[in-house]
Every structure is written in C-alpha cells, then in structure tokens.
C-alpha cells in the first residue's frame, strides 16, 4: 500500500525538520551562528494515467491524467545568512562584521577556514587568534608593550605603545566573500570551509564595496529567532502526528481487507 510509505516519508521529513530546529535552538547563543532551514520538495510522481493520452478512437484525450505522488523529501537544509545583532562585549579583541564578509582563519592543517565569529584573543606571542588558538589571517601581532588597541571600521589595527602618543599601525584585517555563502561547508567550532558550491573566496578590506564594516568591542549574535523556531517546532510536531494518523488509517484499511469473510 503506497499510502504507508508516503506517510513514512512525511514522518522522516518532519523528523529531519525537528533536528534542524533543535540545532538552531541549541545554538541560539552561539556567536556568529546562522540559523538553518529545511526545505522540502515533493517526491517522484507515478503516472497512473498519463495526461494527453487518447481516451477513445475519436481522438479525445485525457485532460488531467492521474499522477500519484510518492511523498516528500528534504530538498536541502540551507543556512540563512542574514545579519545577526551586534552585541556589545567591551572586549577590545572582539569584532563583528556589519554586512557581508567572513574572517579568514588559518587551520592547523594549513587550510583556510572562514567564520563570522569574531570573539578573538591574543596568544602568548601576541598573535590575534580564535578561541581555539587558530591564527587570524593575515597575521596580526600586538606588541607586548601596547597599552591600547583599536580596530577601525575598515579593519586597520592600530596600537598605542608605552610612552608614545602617535598610534602605530600593526596590521590590516581582511574579509572574504563568496558568491554563494549558503554553499560553505560547516565543520563545527563556528568554522566554515570553501566548497565547489560556494565558489572561490574573494578577499577585500572591510568597508570596500561588497564588504561589511568592522565593529570593535562587539560580537555578532546568532540570527536564531526563538519565537519563530518554537512555532516551527509546533508545526513540525503536528505534521508528524498527521502523518502517523495516515499510517494508522492505511493499516486499519489493510486489516479490513484482510478480514473479509469468504
């Protein structure tokens, strides 16, 4: 009975939906997290009676035909890359991108990863690094005798050292942008990798055309909307229940057919 499998595909789809929603809710307070959305599509259709088929020798044709669908599948789960709210932290090494662009991070493997999470710190050598100690690219070293560090909107890093009045430029933060940001591959730890789907990275300075500006002392909050996620969760649960109702009905109909007395 096709209805059983169709409803099972509906339940599987809703289960995936709940998994995506629960990951969004779990990461509600993750810096730079972008919420995900599950997109569903209908599955294949079986042509029981093809439209346009001849229905008589007089040349009349079937106007609509009978197409029976086989259920639903997850079309894609994509990241919604809209801006998260910048949140003031007061930490001078924290940075948020207001607009497009990703920070570039050098992974221990030598690969470049990309992130929106700008909660940086300095390591023992004064290098600007992520929470995991991976260096921000291009390298920026803060001298040991720096009293104050300031990052301009265009990404210029300046320090004032002991006894100096003139700020000194120690580096320039660059951002990467992609044609298809949703095509980046998430590898956990707030990091993303370039893929064939995202297209190659396009590197530029903050504030240039197509790149956002930097905000020092802020981090970008996740763009998860708790109310929207909870209502999505309710919808998913009800949809799951309805599909299970179809399974029950199909099962009862099968059992009726099986109990016909001969």
């Amino acid at each position, binding site marked *: 009975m096709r209805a059983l499998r169709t*409803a099972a595909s509906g339940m599987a789809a809703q289960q995936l939906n709940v998994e995506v929603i629960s990951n969004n809710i779990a990461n509600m307070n993750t810096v730079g997290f972008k919420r995900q959305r599950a997109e*569903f599509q209908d599955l294949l259709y079986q042509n029981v009676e093809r439209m346009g088929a001849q229905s008589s020798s007089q040349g009349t044709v079937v106007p609509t035909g009978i197409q029976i669908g086989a259920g639903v599948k997850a079309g894609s789960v994509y990241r*919604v890359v809209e801006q998260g709210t910048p949140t003031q932290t007061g930490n001078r090494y924290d940075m948020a991108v207001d607009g497009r662009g990703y920070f570039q991070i050098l992974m221990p493997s030598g690969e470049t990863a990309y992130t929106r999470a700008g909660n940086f710190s300095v390591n023992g050598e004064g290098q600007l690094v992520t929470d995991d100690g991976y260096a921000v690219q291009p390298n920026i070293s803060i001298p040991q005798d720096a009293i104050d560090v300031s990052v301009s909107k265009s990404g210029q890093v300046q320090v004032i050292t002991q006894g100096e009045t003139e700020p000194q430029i120690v580096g320039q933060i660059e951002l990467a942008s992609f044609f298809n940001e949703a095509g980046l591959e998430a590898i956990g730890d707030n990091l993303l990798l370039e893929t064939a789907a995202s297209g190659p990275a396009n590197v530029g300075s903050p504030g240039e055309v197509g790149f956002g500006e930097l905000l020092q002392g802020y981090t970008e909050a996740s763009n998860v909307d708790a109310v929207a996620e909870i209502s999505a969760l309710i919808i998913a649960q009800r949809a799951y229940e309805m599909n299970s109702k179809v399974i029950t009905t199909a099962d009862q109909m099968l059992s009726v057919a099986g109990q*016909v007395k001969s």
Partner: protein
Amino acid sequence: MENAAYAGLSRQMTLRRELDIVANNIANADTTGFKVEQLLLGEEVGERARNAFIRPGVSFVMDNGIGRDFSQGALEQTGRSLDFAIEGEGAFFALKDGNGDAYTRDGAFTLDPEGRLTTQGGAAVQGDGGDIVLDPLLGQVAVAADGTISQNGQPVGRLSVVRFDTLAVLEKGGDGLYRNASNAAPAAANDVQVRQAMLEGSNVNPILEITNLIEIQRAYESVTRMIENTNDLSRRAVERLGRAA
C-alpha cells in the same frame, strides 16, 4: 458473478487511490509551494452489449483524473533575500535545467559558484533575457513586485513569471517542479506580484485532509461490508437451492 461485488470493488480501488493521494497531501503539508490534489471520480455506466450479464442500471466508480487546487498558499516571512513568493494564482517562476523548461512556485533560490540564480536543486532561474547572474559585491539584492531585480539601485534583470491558458497542461515532475506536457506556450503573468524574503507555504488544509482520511476509511469499511453481505447472500442462496434439490 454478482454485479454488486464488482461495483463495490470499483469503489474499493478508487478509495485506495484516494488514500494514496491524501497521504501525499499530508506528507507535503509543509512543502514550499505545494498544491493540494484530489482524485476526480465519475460514474461509469455498465455497457449492455459487450457484457451481457451486466444489467442496465449498474454503474461503476471510475477515477478519470486528478484535480489540483492552484489556490494561493499562505506567505511565510523568512527574512532571506533570495527567497521569493508569487502572490497571485496560477503563475510560476520559469526555470531551465538539463531536461528543458520547468516551472515552480517554490522560490527558495540560491546562487551557484558563478553567481547564477538557481533553485536549491540547481535549475537556473530564468529572467527576461535568460539566466540571471548576480554579483554579491554589488550589494544587497532587492526585488520589486513586478520581479525587477536591482542591486544598489541598478536594475540587473527581471524574474520571468509566467502562466498558462490552462493549468491542466502541467505535469508534476517531483522536486517541486512542473513540466509542460503540451505544446502550449506560457505567457508573461503581469497581474501577479513577486514578494521578496517570503516563501509560499503549501495550500494543504490539514483539517480537511484528516476529515478526508476518516471518510475514506469509513467508506472502505462499509464497501467491504457490502461485498461481504453480497457474498453471504449468494452462499446462502446456493445452500438453500442445494437443500431444495
């Protein structure tokens, strides 16, 4: 054999098919741009000449097609700049993929590595002049109600939104796509609006579908009972006839 059993069987077969369709509707209650379907039933009058033992007055149930309800689904705000919904019935986004032209109401688009606007499945979204190519460096994408796409105030293309004279020519291809099963050419739909950062939900009415489900189940049970009774009747007839002899 008994006509009643055959008439009952014809109903049982269509009920099974109706159940399959209702199951598909419910499974797609959360599918973007999905349009609800229903089986169209008709009366098939038994023919006298070809089938002598069927007496006139007996008719069977025949499913002669499915009807799609192309009414507007609810618009849902997503906040994503590449999500589009059509407000207005019977119009579609024109697409092109490896299998030719396709049409969809599912406007959750994305960009491919070359900046072409595509569906999540990779079919290229068509504009007035072919594929639509966007450069993210040019800034935010804004789409006007007539489908004109602009970046930084500069128009860069226009989404092609089309409709057919009769919607019956469309065949569902899965993946939210419709294909044109006839030679009819689509025409531009100028009376509908394109909404940005919104998606059209499916137009499945869950309450109606669950009610249909109950109806189908009960009808199936009563038809089965009718077949059982008919069967019973003929068995008793045979028994009694046997006794008389």
